[in-house]
Each structure stands twice: as C-alpha cells, then as structure tokens.
C-alpha cells in the first residue's frame, strides 16, 4: 500500500468527515435535540393525538403487509431466476430492477392510472364490485410493494447463486420432494439473506412518501400514513409534532441499520 503524505491524509480526512458532518450528522443531531427540546412533551403530545396514533398504526399495517408480499414474491422469483432456465429469464431479471429507478411520484401515477375508480383500466371493474384501491389501504400497500420490490431479490439471488444446488440435488436424489428440499435445505442456507432483505424492505416501506402521497387522499385517521403526517404537521406549524413523528421514524430506521450491521458478518461466514 502506498502511504499518502501526512498533509494530504489530513486534508482528505477533513473533507470526508466535514462533508458528512455538515450534511448528515449535524442535521440529524439537531432533529433529535429539537424533539426533546421541551423534555418528553413533544413525544407524549404526539402519542396522545389520535390522528398521529392511527397514522403510525396505518404505517405499521401497510409496511407489514407489503413486506410479507415482497418476501413471498421475492423468494419465489429468486429461486426461479437462479435455479431454472426459461425463455424470457434475462428480461425478467432486468425488469425486477426497474422499481429502483422509477420516481416514487411516477409509481403513484402509474397505479392511479390503472386502479382509480373513475376511468382506471381495472379500477372501474373493481369499484363496481365494491373494492376501492386508490385512496384506500390496498393502494397504499401496492405503492409500498412497488418501491420495495427488488430489495429481497437483490439479497437472496447472490447467496442462492453462491451456495449452488449440489445439496439440493443430493436431497432430491435421497427422495425428498420439492417442498421438503426447499424448507430443509434451501431456506436454512439463505436464511440470513432473507432476513436482511426483509429488514431493508421494512425500513423502505415505513419511510415511503412520494408514491404513497399520490395514491392516498391524505385523510387524517384514515389514509394518512406516518410520513404523510410529518408533512402535514410541519405545514400546519405543529412542528413539535412533526419532529416527534420524524424521530419515531428515524428510530425505526436506525434500529434496522443496527440489525443489518449485526447480521452482515454472519452472511459472509
């Protein structure tokens, strides 16, 4: 390794640390300080406001539903992409990445165009049968599923590829059927990748804002999620409340980061 001269080393350190400090560390620190400016009042006020509580509950519900759907879908697609050959596989593996690069607002618009009850491609039919998607919880779940879709797949595919299918073939040759092979051989070996993907999806789902904003009519207590209520509270000059909800969201995300950091080495073992 070539050592850099001491002045250069310090200059690079200063740039890196300074940039991250001013852009991320200090602002996040300020948020935490402002949340606790009047002691715990901001938090207790927010948590006794029924609208805030129902927004948090809705976010929790939507996130759990979206993560479960993405978990099942993600593991299925990963198995198909790694273990099987079929026409169109390449296209599919490129397509599952698309949600990562689509703007959240565009995601919302796309869902609205298909599922709105007035002139949506499928929305009118669903509405006739009494199912509303847009401006209701199913729409929130779909928008959240969309944006978090590739996360599980991206974690599981590399691990599946790496472990190979020798053990699975051995199990099959010894008479295990497909579900047995999956539950007893494949799943245990991709366990940590799955958990990691789920944690990432959860953090992403809890924090989604743009896509959710388009498909929600933002009615407090009904279709307002936690991120939407941060915006609403701030714009209504209820800044203490906005800080409190934001703080809770940050805590969820920091917890996910910690879980991920703890799991990461195990994945590499």
């Amino acid at each position: 390794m070539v050592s850099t001269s001491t002045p250069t080393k310090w200059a690079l350190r200063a740039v890196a640390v300074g940039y991250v400090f001013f852009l991320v560390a200090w602002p996040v620190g300020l948020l935490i300080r402002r949340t606790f400016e009047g002691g715990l009042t901001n938090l207790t006020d927010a948590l006794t406001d029924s609208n805030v509580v129902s927004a948090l509950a809705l976010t929790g519900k939507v996130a759990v539903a979206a993560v479960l759907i993405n978990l099942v879908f993600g593991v299925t697609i990963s198995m198909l992409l790694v273990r099987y050959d079929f026409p169109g596989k390449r296209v599919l593996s490129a397509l599952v990445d698309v949600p990562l690069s689509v703007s959240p607002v565009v995601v919302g618009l796309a869902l609205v165009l298909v599922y709105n009850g007035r002139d949506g491609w499928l929305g009118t039919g669903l509405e006739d049968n009494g199912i509303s998607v847009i401006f209701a919880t199913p729409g929130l779940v779909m928008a959240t599923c969309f944006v978090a879709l590739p996360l599980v797949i991206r974690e599981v595919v590399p691990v599946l590829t790496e472990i190979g299918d020798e053990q699975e073939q051995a199990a099959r040759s010894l008479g295990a059927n497909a579900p047995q092979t999956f539950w007893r051989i494949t799943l245990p070996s991709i366990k940590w990748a799955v958990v990691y993907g789920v944690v990432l999806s959860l953090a992403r789902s809890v924090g989604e804002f743009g896509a959710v904003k388009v498909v929600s009519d933002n009615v407090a207590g009904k279709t307002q999620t936690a991120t939407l209520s941060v915006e609403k509270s701030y714009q209504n000059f209820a800044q203490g409340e906005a800080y409190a909800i934001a703080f809770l969201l940050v805590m969820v995300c920091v917890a996910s980061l910690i879980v991920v950091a703890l799991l990461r080495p195990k994945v590499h073992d």
Partner: protein
Amino acid sequence: MSAALTGATIDTAGPASPQGGRTRRTTPRNTLTPGAGVGLGLAMIWFSLLVLLPLSAIVARAASGGWSQYYTVLQNPQTWNAVQLTVTQSLVVTLINVVVGTVIAWVLVRDRFWGQRLLNVIIDVPFALPTVVAGLVLLGLYGPNSPIGVEWAFTPNAVTLALAFVTLPFIVRTVQPVLEELDTDVEQAAASLGASRPTIFRRIILPSLVPAIASGAALSFARAISEYGSLVLLSGNRPNQTEVVSVRVLSFIENGNYSSAAALASVMLFIALLVIVVLDIVQRRVARRG
C-alpha cells in the same frame, strides 16, 4: 450498505447447471418443473398487476396524446424550468458525489482513525431515513433561524442540498468494495520504480476505480432526477425557482391532468431506462475484463 440499495444489476445470466455453460445455445432452454411453472405464473401475474400494467398505462396515456402532447407539456415555461433545474442540479450533485464520494471511500478504506467506524455507519443514514424526514432534518440546519447562519431553504441551493443528502451513499458504496479488493502490490511496484504518488493514483488506482465511480454516478444521477420526498419541505416548491420535475408531475396529478402527468412521467421513465441500460453495459464490460 449493500448491493440491494446501491443498485448494481443482478447478474443471473449464469447457467443453472454446470453443463449449460459449455455449449452455446441459440434458444433458451426450459428447465421449469410443473411446480416451478405454476410459481412463475403466479409471480408473473402479480408482477404484471403491480409493475408492468401500471407502467404501460403511463406510456399508453402519454402516447394517446401524440407528439403534440409532449410538445405542449414541455413548451410550458414552468415545466421547462423544472426540467432544467432538475437536470442541472442532478448533474451538479453527481459531480460533487464523484469527488467527495471517492474521497470518503478512500478515507474509509486506506486511512485509520478514531471514529472511522462511526463515519462508515453514518454514510448509510441517508438510505435508511424516510425522504420526508431527510427534508425536515436539513431544514433544521439550513432552514430559517439556521444555527450556522446558512439559510438555504426555499432557494435553488436547497435542491442541491437535498439531492446531495439522498445520493451521498451511492458512489461511496460502489467504490469502497473495489478499493478494498485492489491489489497494493502493483502500487508498491510502481512506487519502487520511482512513480510519484499523484502518478500512481492517476495511472494505477484511478483506472480500476472508474467503472465503480461510473456506475455509482449513474445511480446517483437517476436517483437525483426522480427525487421528491426530501424536496417537499426544504425547497418550498416555488414555481420556476425551486420546483423540480417530480413536483410538476404531482401537481398535474392533483389537478386531474393525468395526460400531462403521464407525458412528463414517461420522459422520466425513459431517462431511468437509459441509465439502467448504460449501467448494464458498463457492468458487463467490467465483468468481461475481470
């Protein structure tokens, strides 16, 4: 933090069984068992309902207005200003990230100092933070009554700031692993042959980092042009000044003008697609070389 978030393309091109790699096939083989076939079918139905159909709805809606529709939408000065602002700010931020991101990656890999692990963790914070919270967080330091006297909120600088925040991890996290894998023998050999430090960096280290920097830059540009959440509170969405494309699309949607929204959205989709394709080409080229 991970490939999942930095967005390196999944490569599943490898054959499913060892013997598949030897011979070059013209038509893709089908090794689906009946059970797997059903799984694929169900997965594809859900994927179509969730992703493919809605995205085609945008394209269809945009196409129904023809070229004149695009022309009218982009002709609108407010929209055009939004497009210009978004593209220039995304380029500026990507440029900042190319330089600072590489420096941060370098410091994280080649330097040892107190607090380095903390720095490494903080890099991931922008990925983990909900975007609207990112905006709120930046308002604290750069908003009204800023403790450091930098009141950038509601000016074009706010857009730069928000985009820099949300795209910070991309280049760091793509360059870092490459730098870790880099063989230092070559650098030592160059040094022993009398190459100066700048020369070693420029001739030996930089060339191996370029693909990673490029893919990180593409990702950060793609993220920047599509950003919405972090700008809502911070930029004030002032027409012609701090309004970005996503905000324009949203206001079209809110006014019920789905056709204009779809036209503008399809332009964004096209750019996103372009970035994916370029990224794929870059990575394939690198994979071939490696």
